[in-house]
């Protein structure tokens, strides 16, 4: 057991606190998003309880927003569910990326990891899992980050459902731009290799071209095109490391 004396292994509680701290900037970006969801929900035809329940049990920001839009447009229930599947398919890719790190985890841990698997949580925790230290408590880091994101999301939905109703025309303020700003801040640090820059460019272009596809399928088409472009560039360009100048 000499290794346990060489590394200072953080306690589960310390890991959880680190996770909550590291996800803090992303929580700030999600606050307006959650408040707007709560503010718009009742106008789109969801009851107070179902809107709060959607944030508490579904916990999927973009799918929830798209569901609101479809409900407001009078879409049928199966169509909203199908669109939820398509919009959340990206989480399948996230869970695939987490596979190497969860193989020894208990079913209960896997369920918790699955439930909290949203864009922001994935972006933060994958970096912790990739760190080489042998901490046995990295799942606690996940729980801290995911739990903080979750509590904030539910609380902001409640704020929107209550206080948000008092703000005149809150939706017109453009608070949704906070999500755009957050996601740009998460994407840009990835853009350090040519295949990655190519993948990002192709994904953005295809997302615009495929925007007219039904059920928000354009998102998945763009994601697949971007991944394929990155993979192709990585395979076919020698010296792919280094920033394009």
């Amino acid at each position, binding site marked *: 057991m000499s290794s346990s004396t060489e590394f200072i292994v953080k306690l589960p509680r310390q890991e959880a606190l680190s996770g909550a701290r590291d996800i803090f*900037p992303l929580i*700030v*970006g999600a606050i307006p998003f959650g408040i707007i969801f709560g503010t718009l929900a009742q106008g789109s035809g*969801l009851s107070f309880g179902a809107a709060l*329940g*959607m944030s508490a*049990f*579904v916990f*999927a920001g973009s*799918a*929830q927003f798209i569901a609101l839009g479809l*409900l407001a447009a009078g879409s049928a*229930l199966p169509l909203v*569910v199908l669109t939820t*599947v398509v919009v*959340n398919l*990206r*989480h*399948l*890719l*996230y*869970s695939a*990326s987490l*596979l190497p790190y*969860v*193989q020894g985890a208990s079913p209960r841990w*896997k*369920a918790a*990891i*699955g439930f909290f698997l949203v864009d922001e949580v*994935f972006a933060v925790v*994958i970096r912790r899992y990739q760190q080489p230290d042998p901490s046995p408590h990295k799942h606690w880091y996940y729980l801290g980050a995911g739990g903080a994101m979750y509590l904030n999301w539910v609380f902001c939905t409640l704020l929107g459902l209550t206080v948000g109703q008092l703000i005149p025309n809150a939706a017109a303020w*453009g608070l949704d*731009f906070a999500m*755009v*700003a*957050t*996601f*740009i*801040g998460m*994407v*840009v*640090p*990835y853009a350090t290799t040519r295949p*990655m820059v190519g*993948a*990002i460019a192709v*994904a*953005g*272009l*295809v997302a*615009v071209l495929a*925007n007219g596809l039904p059920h928000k399928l*354009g998102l998945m088409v763009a*994601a697949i095109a*971007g*991944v394929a472009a*990155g*993979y192709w560039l*990585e395979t076919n360009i020698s010296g792919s490391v280094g920033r394009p100048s």
Partner: protein
Amino acid sequence: MNDWLLVALMALVTFSIRYTLLAFSGHLRLSPTLVRALGYVPPVVLTAIVVPAVVLPEGELWLGWQNARLVGAIACVALALWRKNLLLTIAGGMTAFWGWQWWIGSQLP
């Protein structure tokens, strides 16, 4: 529309998508090809969400300087390239977006 049924079904499909691979992780082996491809997933998906929100705010392509979302997004990219500080990118981007929106509004008769 039974909205609680909708919540239940959305919760079911969302959790299934997130959990299924994790549940079978002990029996799965990913090919190196797939692992390499998956490395592109996070930025590619986020980009595919963001770009239409910026250049197609009302469903129509809008690349003019009057598009405050476009100006705000350019500010975000510049800030993120300058400093890898997410809070700075969010705060600066929101300021640029709101400031530009206000300025555009003040230019209109």
